């Protein structure tokens, strides 16, 4: 069967089947399966210790799963098992096709080089060798994440938490990735900054047609950004479905508890 490029949106971008990560006898996450389609935003929610981040790291090749497989459809339309690729190919994916936004910007940024170099690093990693062009692209991206142009030569150390997080997002999106992993991107930010960041993310995701897997314990973030949701508890996915469906009509008792424990101001 020949594969039509035009219809590639009909095929999943990421296929996760029975992914399990055990830490010795303890369960990190167990038998997680789902498909992610191009342009789709999937939220993974659950309490602390429920295995959200373990699952995310297994998908993003930062942790090797104990069993199960994770398949990714590359730009050529081939489905490849991530853990059967060579390390060189995986690392190439990480800096071109994928992005990873850490909860703490200091983990995802180079704190000792300027904002411009942080954004330009991925470009240089894929072979950009024209300073002027790299700088123009960096300036453009700083503008898109609402960082003033005259801050381009400042270190991220001189930035506020919200700015650092926006810089981290720009740094990840500069190579036009197809899939972005986010681990609590709004954690530790105050609510007004959080709101602006979410607004920005929603705009970028829609404009660029990104697929996103976002880990959060904040159901409001999940509701705002995601199309689909996985609820995790004790390493298992206990409920999944469309975001508004799960949040408005939770079936599992734990999900009901989670939804009802949101504070109403």
């Amino acid at each position: 069967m020949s594969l039509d490029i035009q219809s590639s949106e009909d095929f999943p971008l990421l296929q996760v089947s029975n992914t399990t990560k055990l830490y010795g006898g303890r369960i990190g996450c167990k038998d997680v399966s789902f498909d992610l389609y191009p342009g789709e935003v999937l939220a993974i929610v659950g309490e602390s210790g429920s295995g959200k981040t373990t699952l995310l790291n297994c998908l993003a090749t930062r942790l090797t799963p104990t069993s199960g497989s994770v398949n990714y459809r590359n730009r050529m339309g081939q489905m490849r098992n991530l853990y059967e690729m060579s390390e060189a190919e995986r690392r190439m994916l990480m800096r071109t096709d994928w992005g990873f936004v850490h909860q703490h910007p200091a983990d995802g940024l180079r704190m000792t080089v300027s904002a411009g170099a942080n954004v330009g690093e991925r470009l240089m990693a894929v072979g950009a060798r024209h300073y002027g062009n790299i700088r123009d692209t960096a300036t453009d991206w700083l503008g898109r994440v609402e960082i003033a142009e005259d801050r381009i030569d400042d270190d991220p150390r001189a930035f506020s938490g919200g700015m650092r997080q926006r810089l981290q997002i720009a740094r990840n999106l500069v190579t036009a990735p197809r899939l972005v992993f986010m681990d609590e991107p709004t954690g530790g930010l105050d609510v007004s900054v959080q709101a602006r960041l979410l607004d920005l993310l929603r705009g970028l995701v829609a404009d660029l047609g990104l697929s996103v897997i976002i880990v959060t314990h904040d159901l409001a973030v999940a509701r705002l950004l995601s199309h689909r949701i996985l609820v995790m508890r004790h390493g298992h996915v206990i409920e999944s479905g469309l975001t508004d469906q799960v949040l408005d009509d939770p079936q599992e008792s734990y999900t009901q508890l989670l939804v009802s424990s949101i504070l109403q101001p």
Partner: protein
Amino acid sequence: MTERVETQGISDEHYNFAYLDEQTKRMIRRAILKGIAVPGYQVPFAAREMPMPYGWGTGGIQVTAAVIGKHDCLKMIDQGSDDTTNAVALRNFFVETTGVDTTTKTKDASIIQTRHRIPEETLTKDQVLVYQVPIPEPLRFLEPRETETRKMHALEEYGLMHVKLYEDIAKFGHIATAYAYPVMVQDRYVMDPSPTPKFDNPKMDQMEALQLFGAGREKRIYAIPPHTKVVSLDFEDHPFEVTKFDQPCAICGAEEVYLDEVILDDDGNRMFVCSDSDFCEERREAGHVGHLGTNPLEAEGND
């Protein structure tokens, strides 16, 4: 200083030839051969304690000790000069432990051990240039993890090196790295050419002599075999440029050479002189005089 010193037969018999024992020399030679086979690749080796502190050239003298033979003629330079402390001490070390001839003349030497400079005179296929290297890892200051830098070398992930150059241009308007300027060896490995000024980088390209690099504290050896392509990294719109001096050597009048600044008094007066002392002396013997120099023949007459 310029005489070839005959020292055969006065070596100290309490030491093995060239200080190191034969097994150690074999181990170092194996590392050197591997380095030559894979140009620019940092080969780990079991560097020994040497009778001097790290940072004084412990890597360089181990490499020299492993390749030196009874009939070699050794030249030892520090910052281009034959008569500075480090050069004198290391030269005496080899005189005592090997009894080989030493020289200050670049063209007479078969082994030249250097800290910083490559001699101005073009080296030939019969010569070996040994560098003392403090920090062999070019990626070190941006990536502190050794496991990660090794992986980056293995997978040719060198984007980070350009991040460093980008930072230079962003901060100073041009690539301000003046020494330890990163180079790409034979289109494969990015290499730190020790603390050599970037002025000397072009000399490494297609050099006829064998170039060996030893880092004692970091326990790494790497090499550039003769006739190997060595390219300094740069940007398309900010190409690599060698250091330019706006005046000739004050003593011998040489141009297009690397100059050292010498402070003359407390009033801010200074002179720029050849960093390669042998090159400068040869030019003066040939009758070249700079604007602050005197003709050595006339000076002798005054004595």
